[in-house]
């Protein structure tokens, strides 16, 4: 597979992750707000606003990655979101807070799944960073060729 193909594949995979994550949170924002609240990180004032807008950001980023429009900023935002999610999960795990992950749905899950969530989010972040790196390399190559 060429570097361009690899870059495209990684972006598509990343887009699929966000496409899978967003719809449930868009449709049931109250549940997602409850999940956010259980992390005990955000102030109460921000929880609903984040619960209403974050899923749409995920959806928009996924859409832009699929369409290859504004790819750089989309990758930046995707990686920023994944980093924040990972940080929140690790923080909750360290603090011993038993939470509904709120990653793909807002259903409660056993606490022993936290390590799984963290590993999964770390894997997504690695995917995002690879996609960003391949994208940046592709741009550099284009600049040199052009």
């Amino acid at each position, binding site marked *: 597979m060429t570097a361009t193909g690899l870059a495209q594949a990684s972006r598509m995979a990343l887009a699929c992750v966000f496409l899978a994550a967003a719809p449930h949170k*868009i449709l049931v*924002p*109250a549940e997602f*707000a*409850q999940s956010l609240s*259980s992390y*005990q990180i955000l102030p*109460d*004032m921000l*929880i*609903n*606003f984040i*619960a*209403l*807008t*974050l*899923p*749409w*950001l995920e*959806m*928009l*980023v996924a859409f*832009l990655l699929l369409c290859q429009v*504004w790819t*750089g*900023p*989309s990758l*930046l*935002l995707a990686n920023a979101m994944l980093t924040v999610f990972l940080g929140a999960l690790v923080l909750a795990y*360290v*603090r*011993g*807070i*038993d*939470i*509904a992950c709120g990653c793909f749905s807002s259903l*409660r899950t056993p*606490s022993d799944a936290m390590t799984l969530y963290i590993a999964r989010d770390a894997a997504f972040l690695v995917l995002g960073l690879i996609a960003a790196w391949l994208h940046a390399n592709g741009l550099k190559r284009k600049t040199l060729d052009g």
Partner: protein
Amino acid sequence: MKFPSFTLQTLGILALAAGLGLAFNANRPDSLPLVRVHEVAVQASPQDNEITLHDAAQLSASGQAVFVDARDASDYAQGHIAGALSLPAFSFTQDFPLVRDSLHNSTVITYCDGEHCELSRDLAEQLKAHGLRNVRVLKNGWTLWRDKGLPTATGQEPLLREPQELEHPAQESLSQETPRLEHAPQQTMPDGPAPEQSTPEGIAHPQEPAQEKSAPQEATPQEPLLQKTPPQESKPTGDQS
């Protein structure tokens, strides 16, 4: 036509997402209020072996209850129900022997923080599995207790506790404790705080650690003090003077 810069594109995506989210919410029949009004925690109807805040406070005031904090030690140190023991659910096996004797003959009330927190329930089940019968769960206990303005404390828990003090909290006196504590003075846990209670005679006096003393609302009667648990042989150690 010049494309907007990277930053502008990023801001554009953020603004578009916010706009879409708010617009979608505004058109929902069950739209979410944009700003969540700070809710004072209200306890739902207690279920199973749960206890209400009111009952827990009453038991606490009468000295009939021992609170056990199921959160981790750092959360406990930041703030806990006054008099509560720290027994993180994750390190139950390791820590339970240290507090076992303090939990008999009282109603044990476990708590953690948050409506979704299951640590207190997990801890209650583990305590029951270890033979304790009267174990109740105060759901969302820390938030409810703190919001109600009931006595709280900060700081780490002393690793040594005195079970008798829980039974006779208001009548604590050093003279009563001295004979029993003669065997305990220098025996601290390996990672425990250096005891300041040794007298020149090597007799310990039950004292709270400094951080517990400084807590503003130390008011509950069953504040854990010194204890030698599990009871150990009263063999004087060689380094005692």
